[in-house]
């Protein structure tokens, strides 16, 4: 009795005095819409939902060409979010309470189908997932997609390993004082993580997802005087980090221990005098084929300005280590590059909550702006 299907309602309503013969509009049927086929400009924006509604986060889907709103994936509380390697799935690690904000806490790893926005899988995991802003690298799939590694914080640091083949929680691995998961491209059972003493910890798994080795590197960066932003881009096993002072660190995570392959400054003396420094949350992007590297920058930097919206975006050629362009920053706090030969760069404006679409070829050039989307949003991912 409680439920009455829409078709029954429609039928009865028609019986009750609708003069269909004269109607120009015919009775319509209500359905559930389908997403348009994904293209490289489909944007996924992770949103905590606002500091007034932290229990109710979501991931917004927006078409990057028309800027039409496509739908949302519910993300609950302080979710970590990541696309699967082939973008066919969206992973979440999130927290629920049985009574919204009280009762029993439980954390879940969840998989949504990005073609339908339907839940495909949910697995309970230890109630320790890092309730962090949605930083890239807080949850990452291994190169082959078999395992998903999830950052934990209690605030003691560890990672949770989920097996996507068996669809089950495997284990928790302690990674004390370390943060952000950097999987090796050449070894699908290996990842590294940045540690507070300037080293990297490299963890190697067996085929069941259990840790078989944990090796600490030499001190590769100065976590006190020139800390690395955790947002990183990679080509193969080489990860590219920028530091607070604008030094690019190239770190290889393919081996048993991580090694510093290169380090050079993004800023020259004149930049330094004007206090140009990197800033933002998702503050870099990299196009591997052309080795173009994009960094959000601001001038007049001060202690605490490292998350400020970008004043400019600087473009570097990693092959020549030369800055090849300075472009307007559009107040970017997050950016992502499409997976295309001639990619577009989408930035998220930290002041207006709008996306800006940049062409990158022949040069970086800001174009169309979206309407505002998101309330307390960060990570931008492209299909």
């Amino acid at each position, binding site marked *: 009795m409680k439920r009455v299907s829409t078709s029954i309602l429609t039928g009865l309503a028609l019986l009750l005095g*609708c003069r269909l013969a004269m109607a120009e509009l015919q009775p319509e049927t*209500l359905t*559930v819409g389908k997403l348009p086929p994904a293209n490289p400009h489909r944007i996924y924006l992770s949103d905590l939902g606002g500091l007034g509604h932290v229990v109710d*986060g979501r991931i917004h889907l927006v078409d990057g060409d028309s800027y039409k709103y496509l739908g949302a994936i519910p993300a609950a509380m302080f979710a970590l979010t990541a696309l699967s390697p082939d973008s066919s799935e969206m992973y979440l690690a999130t927290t629920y309470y049985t009574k919204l904000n009280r009762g029993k806490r439980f954390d879940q790893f969840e998989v949504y189908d990005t073609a339908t926005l339907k839940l495909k899988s949910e697995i309970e995991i230890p109630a320790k997932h890092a309730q962090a802003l949605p930083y890239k690298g807080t949850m990452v799939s291994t190169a082959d997609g078999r395992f998903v590694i999830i950052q934990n914080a209690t605030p003691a640091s560890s990672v949770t390993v989920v097996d996507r083949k068996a669809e089950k929680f495997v284990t928790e691995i302690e990674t004390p004082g370390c943060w952000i998961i950097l999987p090796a491209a050449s070894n699908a059972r290996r990842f590294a993580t940045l540690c507070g003493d300037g080293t990297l910890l490299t963890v190697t798994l067996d085929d069941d997802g259990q840790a078989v080795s944990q090796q600490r590197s030499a001190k590769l960066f100065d976590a006190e005087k020139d800390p690395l932003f955790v947002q990183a881009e990679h080509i193969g096993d080489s990860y590219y980090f920028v530091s607070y002072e604008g030094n690019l660190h190239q770190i290889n995570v393919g081996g048993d221990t991580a090694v510093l392959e290169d380090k050079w400054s993004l800023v020259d003396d004149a930049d330094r005098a004007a206090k140009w420094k990197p800033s933002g949350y998702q503050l870099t992007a990299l196009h591997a084929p052309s080795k173009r590297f994009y960094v959000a920058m601001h001038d007049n930097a001060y202690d605490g300005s490292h998350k400020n919206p970008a004043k400019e975006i600087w473009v570097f050629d990693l092959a020549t280590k030369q800055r090849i362009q300075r472009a307007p920053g559009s107040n970017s706090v997050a950016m992502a590059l499409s997976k295309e030969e001639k990619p577009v760069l989408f930035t998220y404006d930290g002041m207006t909550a709008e996306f800006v679409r940049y062409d990158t070829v022949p040069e970086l050039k800001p174009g169309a702006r979206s309407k505002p989307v998101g309330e307390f949003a960060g990570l931008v991912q492209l299909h």
Partner: protein
Amino acid sequence: MRWFDDFFERQARNVALKTSRRSALLRIGRVMVGTAFLLPVLPFDRQPRAQHGAIDDGKHDPLDPERCEYWRYCSLDGTLCTCCGGSITTCPPGSEPSSVTWIGTCHNPEDGKDYLVSYNDCCGGASCGHCFCNQNEGERPGYRMGIHNDINWCMGNESSVYHCTVSVVLGESGAKAG
């Protein structure tokens, strides 16, 4: 099934009530006069227009389904599925149509006819919140439940989380029907 019978009895009588109808265009924007905010008729809406509200740039196009003044929305109190990933008659992916609905009778300026419109809520997932509208033509209090819009019509669904509202034409409304 009592509520169900009552429901349709009421619908039919409501249809009979609607013998005259003015164009949606005639009554637009009155509330805005003298206010500092570009908010249309949205007593309960405290969300910023720029972020959540439907466009309000002073144009009130009864043929634009992303605006509150679209003719079918004459009794729609909620957020527009057209701004949430759905359309006039489709729920956004990831949500489900409500099993029960309220009804409006709206005037289509294109053909000059009045239509019975079913306002289904779409339910489940994270609620949308975009393009809030509050139109109340023919709306009545909760003792006339079938034409009442201050209640969550996802109430009967497995997930009663409100997502957004569609407006489905059920057919032409006879001036003396029922």
